[in-house]
Every structure is written in structure tokens, then in C-alpha cells.
């Protein structure tokens, strides 16, 4: 038995191929990487550190085992929530064998918090992040189409959502062109499929010219709806060129899709109803406009008709106008005649008064009184005249005496004389007035003399002329 056994063992042993370390590791690597190209591993994070390169290393463990994990820099920055020591997570990634060290590890693509409340915490963190980026801003949102008719729906082909939507849209007043892009709306692939579909819509919009996009699903648990809380769906919605309506059937919280979409409907049915109502509003307004148009043109025509008939009434027969005018003229004439009669009566009354006053002024009694008044005046005039004559006579005598006293001849009586130049009769005032040999006449108080100048003394006192001046004034 033993040799046999040994032989058998040896044979067996020999039949086992010999690998070098590298060969074996390479085989192992190929095997593991082929069979576990993608894995999800649940565990607790420990020994977490971020290298200077930016890559993150940690150990994922549970009560019995552990596995090394690496998250490269680019992936780490995209992670939805930040891994921390002690955190219960599900790591999504691929298995990698690091040959130089003979170690295997998980290369992490996504880290999802796991356990009670962890999802909610991650969701709040994502909400904050997207809010800060402005993805929820109303200003960023596209306006809804005026009349949505071409509708693209991203949802499951089997779900309640598409059934509800089609049922409601069947009642739309205008024709609707509905295109479904079928996707999974729950499970791990859902968010990826929804993201792809949304991006694809952008690619083919040129061809389809959709008016509006509905993305959503019927109601379900928080986990069922989770795809609509994923960041990639949010970002794809924000980038969508078609106005978006988020229609996720749920009751309490808004999903992130609700916050990013241009319009939020509580359910797929509500989204479809919004479209139908919009169409109905347009239909109503159109018929209103039709009514207003017809009514106002009819009104307008009636208005002009009324205006015409009014003008027509005002446009009377000219004969009547002449009759009216004649009547008016007649009336005026009567008024005028009456006024004239009144005026005439007034004047004749006035004339009567004047005549009375004139007659009264010329009565015999008045004449007598006037005569007496006149006599009286004549008498007074006579007396006054006499008195004045007497006064004047006396005044005349008085002036005569004064006159005589002022005569130059009365000066002569006091011994002065007047000397004339014989040739022209000029009264001499200065010695210069005569030259030697001139003949002068001298007037005395009584009689005259004629004399010849023997000598003229020019330089003399100026008294003479002053006295002479007096003579002249007396003249």
C-alpha cells in the first residue's frame, strides 16, 4: 500500500504543475478579476487614511474577516458621502490583485452608507452639496412649454407609472405624441439607466423635438425610489435640454429629482394631468378668444349703426329748418317791436317833464323877481364904479408927485448938470468920451450952455461914472 501509495502520491505530485510565484499570482489575478469584476461588499470601515497622492486606503471588515480597499483620487472626489472610520458601508468596485505584494484588495468605485439613518444622512449631504451648486435654483429652471404635445417619458415599460400617464393623456383635448424610453426604475442599475436615457434625450432631441419630458415611477418604499435621489440622475436632469417634470410617486419628502426638475408632480398621474390641464386651458382660451372676437366685431358694427342712426336723426329736413328759422325770426321781430314801443313811451314821458320844467321857468312871477334882481345888481354896479373912479383919481395925484420927485430935472435943481456931446447928443459919463476941442452942451436946472473942451483928464476917480449912472436910471 505504501509504495503504491507513495507511487500514487508521487505520480500525483509530479502531475501537479509547478508555478513560479509570479506565474501563480498572475493566474490568481486573472481568475479573481474575471470572476469578481464587480462586487459589492458590506462591512465597516477602519484604518482609513488618505495618502499624499490623494488616494484613500482603508480596511473593510466584519466580525470574522477583513479586506483591504483602495479608492483612487478621482473616484474619491466624486463619492456621494465621505467615508469615515466605523462607518457601515457597502463598497462597490472590482477586485484587484497587487502582484508585487501578493495582496488582493477592492478598488472602490462607490461607497454607500448602509444601516439605519445612514442613507438619510447621505441624502441630506448630497442635497446640501447640490443646493450650494445652484442645481435647485428657480432661475436655472427652464420654462414649461406653452402647449405640451410631444412628450417623452423616461420610466419603466412595465410599471404603473406609464399606465397611469397614458390613461390620463388619453383625455388630452389635443393629439399627443408620446415616446417612452424604457428604463429600470429600481435596483442598482436604475440610476445609471435613467442617467443614460436623460443624456440620450439630449442627443436625439434635434430629431424628435419633444416639448416636455416626464421622468419618474409609481409609489414605493424609500429604497425603491432611491434612484431618484442619486447624484448622477440629478446632474443629468439639470443638463437635460427638454423641460423636465419629475413624477415620483411618494408622499413625504421630495426626492432630489423633484428639486432639480423644472416642474415637480406628486405622481405620474399628476404630471399627465398637468399636461392635459394646460391643453384644456389653451382650448378654453381659444374659444374665449373666438367669442370675444365675434362679440366685439358685432358690438363694433352695432356701435357704428347706432352712431349712424343718431346722425341720421340729427340730419333733419331743411324745410323744417327754414320754418323753425321763420318762427324764430317772427318771434324776435315781435320782441323788437315791443321794445321799441317801450322805448318811445319812455322818451315821451321824459319830454313831458322837461316841458313842464321849461314852462315853470318862464312864468310872470319869475320874470318879476328876475327884474328886481337885475335892478339891484345895476345899482350895486353903479356904486362900485363910482368908488373905484375916486380911488384911482387919488392914486393918480399921488403918483404925479412921486414922478416929479424922481425926474432927473429935479436932480438938476439940486445943482447937478447933464453934459452932452454936441455932435451926437451922447451923455458924457467919462472924460474919455470927449477930446480936446469937442463941443459939449450942458443942461442946467434952468437954461443951457455950450462949451468947448480945453483938456480931457482921463485919469480921474471913478466917482463920476457912478453918479452918472444914477442919472441914467432916473431917465
Amino acid at each position, binding site marked *: 500500500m505504501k509504495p503504491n501509495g507513495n507511487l500514487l502520491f508521487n505520480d500525483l505530485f509530479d502531475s501537479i504543475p509547478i508555478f513560479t510565484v509570479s506565474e501563480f499570482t498572475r493566474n490568481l489575478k486573472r481568475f479573481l478579476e474575471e470572476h469578481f469584476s464587480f462586487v459589492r461588499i458590506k462591512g465597516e470601515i477602519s484604518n482609513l487614511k488618505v495618502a499624499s497622492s490623494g488616494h484613500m486606503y482603508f480596511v473593510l471588515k466584519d466580525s470574522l474577516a477583513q479586506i483591504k480597499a483602495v479608492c483612487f483620487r478621482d473616484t474619491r472626489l466624486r463619492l456621494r458621502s465621505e467615508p469615515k472610520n466605523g462607518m457601515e458601508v457597502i463598497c462597490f468596485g472590482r477586485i484587484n490583485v497587487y502582484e508585487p505584494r501578493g495582496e488582493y484588495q477592492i478598488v472602490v468605485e462607490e461607497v454607500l452608507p448602509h444601516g439605519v439613518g445612514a442613507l438619510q444622512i447621505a441624502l441630506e449631504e448630497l442635497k446640501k452639496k447640490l443646493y450650494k451648486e445652484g442645481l435647485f435654483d428657480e432661475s436655472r429652471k427652464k420654462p414649461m412649454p*406653452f402647449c405640451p404635445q410631444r412628450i417623452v417619458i423616461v420610466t*419603466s415599460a412595465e410599471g404603473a407609472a406609464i399606465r397611469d400617464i397614458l390613461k390620463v393623456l388619453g383625455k388630452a383635448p*389635443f393629439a399627443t405624441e408620446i415616446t417612452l424610453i424604457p428604463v429600470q426604475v429600481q435596483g442598482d442599475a436604475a440610476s445609471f439607466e435613467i442617467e*443614460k436615457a436623460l443624456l440620450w434625450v439630449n442627443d436625439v432631441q434635434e430629431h424628435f423635438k419633444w416639448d416636455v419630458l416626464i421622468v419618474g415611477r409609481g409609489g414605493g418604499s424609500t429604497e425603491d425610489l432611491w434612484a431618484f435621489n442619486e447624484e448622477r440622475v440629478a446632474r443629468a436632469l439639470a443638463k437635460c435640454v427638454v423641460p423636465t417634470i419629475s413624477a415620483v410617486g411618494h408622499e413625504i419628502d421630495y426626492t432630489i429629482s423633484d428639486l432639480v426638475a423644472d416642474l415637480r408632480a406628486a405622481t405620474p398621474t399628476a404630471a399627465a394631468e398637468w399636461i392635459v390641464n394646460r391643453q384644456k386651458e389653451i382650448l378654453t382660451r381659444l374659444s374665449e378668444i373666438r367669442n370675444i*372676437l365675434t362679440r366685439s366685431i358685432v358690438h*363694433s358694427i352695432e356701435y357704428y349703426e347706432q352712431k349712424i342712426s343718431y346722425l341720421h336723426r340729427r340730419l333733419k329736413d331743411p324745410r323744417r329748418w327754414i320754418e323753425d328759422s321763420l318762427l324764430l325770426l317772427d318771434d324776435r321781430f315781435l320782441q323788437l317791436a315791443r321794445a321799441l314801443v317801450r322805448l318811445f313811451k319812455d322818451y315821451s314821458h321824459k319830454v313831458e317833464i322837461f316841458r313842464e320844467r321849461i314852462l315853470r321857468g318862464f312864468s310872470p312871477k319869475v320874470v318879476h323877481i328876475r327884474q328886481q334882481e337885475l335892478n339891484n345888481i345895476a345899482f350895486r354896479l353903479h356904486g362900485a364904479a363910482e368908488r373905484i373912479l375916486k380911488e384911482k383919481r387919488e392914486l393918480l395925484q399921488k403918483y404925479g408927485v412921486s414922478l416929479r420927485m424922481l425926474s432927473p430935472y429935479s436932480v438938476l435943481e439940486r445943482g447937478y448938470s447933464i453934459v452932452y456931446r454936441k455932435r451926437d447928443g451922447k451923455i458924457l459919463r467919462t472924460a474919455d468920451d470927449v477930446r480936446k476941442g469937442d463941443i459939449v452942451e450942458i443942461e442946467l436946472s434952468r437954461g443951457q450952455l455950450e462949451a468947448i473942451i480945453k483938456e480931457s483928464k482921463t485919469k480921474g476917480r471913478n466917482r463920476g461914472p457912478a453918479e452918472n449912472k444914477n442919472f441914467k436910471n432916473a431917465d
Partner: protein
Amino acid sequence: MARQRTKTSKMQIEDAFKRLEEIVSLLEDGKLPLEESIKIFSEGMKLLEFCQKKLEEAQKTVQKLIKENARDWKLEPFGMSENSEEEAPF
């Protein structure tokens, strides 16, 4: 404003509506002369007709859009009854 006539050839239903509202308020004002009123009234009627036509342009269809490869897509008619067995081929 009333003079500007609208060309309906390249118009969107939204523009047609805007012009219709304009026409309605002009007519409701009642300040236009009769001739002008009739002119914009008939313009309004044409726009109404245009809107009606535009609204009827869409065909009542329900279809499914399926991506065949990176560039191409395929349209399939979609009815609720027949598709219950179908898988989403995304």
C-alpha cells in the same frame, strides 16, 4: 400696432396666441375705426384657424424608443397590452 399684420407661415402657436391676446384687447378697447376693427378681426380669425391647425398637427401616437447602439435608435409601437412581457432592453 393694429397695422402690423402677422405672417402665419413660420409662426409658433405661442406667438399666435400672443398676437391673438393683443387683437382681443384692441377690439375690447373699442377705439379702433370700423375698417381697422374688421381688418384685425379677420386677422384674429385667421390666427385662430392657424392655432387649431397647429394643435391638430401632432399625431396621436404612443411609441417606444430603443437605443440600438451608440448612434442609432429604433422606434417601436407601444401598447400597454402587448408589452407586459417585454423587457427593457436598455
